[in-house]
């Protein structure tokens, strides 16, 4: 089991105690986190090789036809750097990596799509390295899916819960003639009229993303899983680096101690002190199938 985290800055890279570092380039991801230039990525990869850490490039957005040539150029460039793993959600990435016989370096992370053991096993049969399970699962469901043997789970942080091609903030500011407002890369929140929680919303070069209102945390539950996940991931978005480094250290300490009870409890307590609003997502909350009428099919 490896602890992987989005790298926030090169400056403090040596402070990251995680087993793997996730990084990306603004063209390749819709997450406004861990973004670096090609030169910086080269530096990060060299660092990971020197320090026996896994290098993981985030390619996890959907790409459009007009972007494919540029995507192929980037992939070609990064493959030459001998990056260890690549997180993807667009099936195009699989096709392209298969062309290089490098699909075994891929980690599938489409956020919503892996909700059954059978779908996880499908991707295992496609020879990918790992598969992130959906964040919408109960602990019982996760415990079933980990039997696939190559599972990755989100362990801490805000979840991206919405991704749109539309520039929703720009559109709204244009509509309301409020165009002087900064739109790109600035964090706003939305609050639904009947709810108290506020959801972070960000616009970037690829559209608009919305994140969960609160940070999710799973730690002691990991120990209870029948099969240990291949990766557990700490998502660093909206977390200041100093705090992030402490959280990573807490997780790492628990893992290194083999989830010894006293150390785990101490870490859980500290996580709650760092952010009293952390919650367990859907781990103990089964979703309902109240019938709606979304725009299928």
């Amino acid at each position, binding site marked *: 089991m490896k602890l992987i985290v989005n790298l926030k800055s090169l400056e403090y890279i040596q402070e990251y105690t995680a087993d793997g570092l996730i990084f990306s380039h603004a063209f390749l991801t819709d997450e406004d986190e861990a973004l670096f230039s090609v030169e910086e990525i080269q530096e990060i990869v060299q660092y990971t090789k020197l320090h026996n850490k896994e290098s993981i490039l985030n390619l996890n957005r959907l790409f459009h*036809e007009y972007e494919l040539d540029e995507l192929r150029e980037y992939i070609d460039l990064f493959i030459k750097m001998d990056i260890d793993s690549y997180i993807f959600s667009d099936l195009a990435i699989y096709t392209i990596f298969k062309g290089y016989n490098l699909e075994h370096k891929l980690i599938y992370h489409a956020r919503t799509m892996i909700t059954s053991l059978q779908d996880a096993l499908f*991707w295992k049969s496609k020879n990918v390295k790992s598969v992130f399970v959906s964040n919408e699962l109960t602990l019982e469901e996760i415990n079933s899916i980990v039997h696939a043997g190559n599972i990755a789970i989100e362990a801490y942080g805000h979840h991206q819960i919405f991704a749109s091609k539309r520039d*929703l903030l720009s559109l709204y500011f244009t509509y309301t003639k409020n165009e002087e407002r900064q739109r790109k890369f600035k964090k706003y929140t939305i609050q639904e009229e009947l709810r108290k929680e506020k959801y972070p919303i960000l616009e970037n070069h690829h559209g608009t993303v919305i994140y969960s209102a609160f940070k999710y945390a799973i730690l002691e539950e990991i120990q209870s899983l029948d099969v240990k996940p291949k990766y557990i991931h700490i998502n660093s978005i909206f977390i200041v680096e100093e705090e992030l480094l402490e959280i990573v250290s807490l997780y790492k300490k628990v893992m290194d101690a083999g989830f010894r009870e006293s150390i785990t409890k101490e870490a859980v307590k500290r996580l709650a002190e760092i952010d009293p609003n952390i919650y367990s997502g859907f781990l103990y*909350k089964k979703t309902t199938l109240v019938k709606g009428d*979304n725009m299928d099919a």
Partner: protein
Amino acid sequence: MRKIELLAPAGDLEKLKIAVLYGADAVFIGGKKFSLRARASNFEIKDIKEACDFAHKHGTKVHVTMNIIPHNEDLVSLEEYIKDLDSCGVDAVIVASMYIASKVKEIAPRIEVHFSTQMSTTNSEAVRFLENEGYERAVLAREVTLEELEVVLPNTNIEIEVFIHGGMCVSYSGRCMLSNYMTNRDANRGGCAHSCRWNYTLEDEDGDMVSPPKQFHYGSKDLMALRYIPNLIDLQVASLKIEGRMKSIYYVATVVRSYRKLIDAYYEIQNKDKLDWEYYETEIKKAENRLTSIGFFEGQVTPNEQLYNMRNEIPTKEFVGVVLEYDASTEIATIQQRNHFLPDDTLEFFGPDLENTVYTIGEIQDEVGNSLDAARHPLQILKIKVPFTLSPFDMVRKVMGK
């Protein structure tokens, strides 16, 4: 060159029959299991059999939606269900799960597997993945532009299906968890609460309100790609999909018939400048009750494609009845009432083979010949005299008062 398929929604057997008779080449329906829109999924296996029998008799194909993102518990009876669909004669299933797709191919290789827009397939390399897996069709993401389609189509070898009319998710389909996070209702298993259409307040990082309270909206208008049909035909798109299994039989009849006429006219005339665009648009407005836009067809959306004022459209015509039978010797039409109308009202009759025909009716009688001062009871059987031939499933509408 194979003629493009017009694919229509059917929420129940009545809607299916209407869609078939009004010109759909294929219909999509939802069974009780595995379907993303379970509220509109009224088809038991026996109904699916009846649907297939009726549709096939008219040369129409039946696609069954199985496009949930399944949890373990959802997959319990999958194999039995696939066998049932196979025995019903279903032509295709629409899926979003790789596992469900693979099981369909394993158990019923005769059935085509179409990958749902829930997969958000946005490019030719992603289509190639599905092609390499041996599947027959990709339903492209509604974010794909016409310009992109012009590149995707020549670079793919499996069938491409494109949405042309109906509701649009504002997020990439299948990638939205708003409903689940806000209401515990799982959109990817049929529980979407339409959270994207609610009222929000937008704040900046300092907590200052950027929008007036509860006035930040980010939902999408519905799609109407009428003007792009000739382009899609020229590009050899395989199928044009109308969304809306929850819609009424009147909506289905009106929208399907309009696109049917447009497609046929374009194949015949081969010149989009000579098509009577105003006619098709006017026809659709007779049933459309939502604001529509061109979605992504021209590229990134503008405020015109967004749903900011939250109002609905009012159809220009109201559906008042469906024809059950017509006696040519007495010129008496038997009609099932669907909305209020009066003696001496001017009504418009239309049908699969009946051009719009306006006629001012006279007396309205009930089933036993009593004269009525109004047709006010839903589903009441009525008789009116009409001096032109009508057929079962023809419909009657009247101009809405403003």
